[in-house]
């Protein structure tokens, strides 16, 4: 049990995530891709006559079950398999965060940044609301996210997925190194 509740090594996680690809294919010819769910939610709730959202979303409900499973799995991991020790963080990151008053590092997301009160501050609003918007807009514009392009697409040797994955990384490097320090100081 202790083996399971300690943080899992990268190779174990990589193997299990990689096996998600054949698992979904063999269970029913389903292609791993999570951001499509955001589109299916739009198609189900507010298609508004937009042709991009006018399709039979019920054919894709398997994917809602898949993310439902993710949600349940996360609950399980955070309760039964919870690791009581503090999360290890690179000292340079920890000190950069501390200069902006972000010192609580016990959770998966820094509770000093991501909480209900900060949602109404400029910094919190930019990170959570604008950040989320960019995730939803960008993944659909790119035609997929880390699962659809970086894992499934690269596994199927699709070169457009390689371009998308490189673009994800470039965007992330720009944000984390050049823009985020400014946002954190807001």
């Amino acid at each position, binding site marked *: 049990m202790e083996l399971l509740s300690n943080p899992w090594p*990268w190779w*174990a996680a990589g193997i*299990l995530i*990689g096996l998600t*690809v*054949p698992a979904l294919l063999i*269970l029913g010819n*389903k*292609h791993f891709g*999570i951001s499509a769910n955001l589109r299916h*939610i739009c198609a189900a709730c*507010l298609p508004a006559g*937009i042709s*991009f959202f006018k399709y039979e979303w019920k*054919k*894709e409900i398997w994917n809602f*079950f898949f993310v439902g499973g*993710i*949600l*349940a*799995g*996360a*609950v399980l*991991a*955070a309760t039964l*398999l919870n*690791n009581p020790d503090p999360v290890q963080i690179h000292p*340079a*990151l920890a000190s950069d965060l501390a200069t902006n008053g972000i010192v609580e590092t016990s*959770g*998966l997301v820094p509770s000093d940044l991501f909480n209900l009160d900060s949602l109404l501050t400029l910094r919190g609003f930019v990170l959570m609301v604008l*950040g989320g*918007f*960019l*995730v*939803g*807009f*960008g993944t*659909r514009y790119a*035609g997929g996210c880390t*699962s*659809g392009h*970086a894992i499934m697409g*690269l596994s*199927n*040797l699709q070169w*457009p997925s390689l*371009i*998308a994955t490189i*673009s*994800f*990384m*470039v*965007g*992330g*490097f*720009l*944000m*984390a*190194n050049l823009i985020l320090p400014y946002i954190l100081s807001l």
Partner: protein
Amino acid sequence: MSTTLKHTQPEQFQHSDLEIRSVDTMCVNESNLSHPWWYNFKYAAAGLVFGVVLVKAEIVSWFRIQEMFRLESFHMYGVIGTAVMIGAISVFIIKALKVKTIYGEEITFQDKKFNRGQIFGGLTFGLGWAMTGACPGPLFAQIGSGALVIGATLISAIAGTWVYGYFRDKLPH
């Protein structure tokens, strides 16, 4: 938000359901089987394992994502690299041996065409990824792990997808 003319296509441009679903989506498929809805619980089981991994390997940790983009940790590169390797070997085997689904259906793959959206959208998503520390899957995992406020991020991501759909015709692809 009423139905506008520019989004209704003339009759000759009407596309099949699968074609519309395929637009700007990496992963679609069509099955002729029809099963009771609860057959989908097998995908929930796969998602459950995936969700546990996301949290236990700290892939959904905002800190790990920062470390990845600041080149301070090998962890995420190891995870994604291993996953792609295992995924690629699996896809190769499935294609080579013509492996069927558990219902005996053929497993199919579609090639993805390049468009500039993969660059523009990819950059946009990358910015958001480093801000929120989450891609779409991890958003659900962060919420499940107890960070309920990330529900606001999820709703905003759905709004982002909707806005993309609304302006899709005007964006360069």
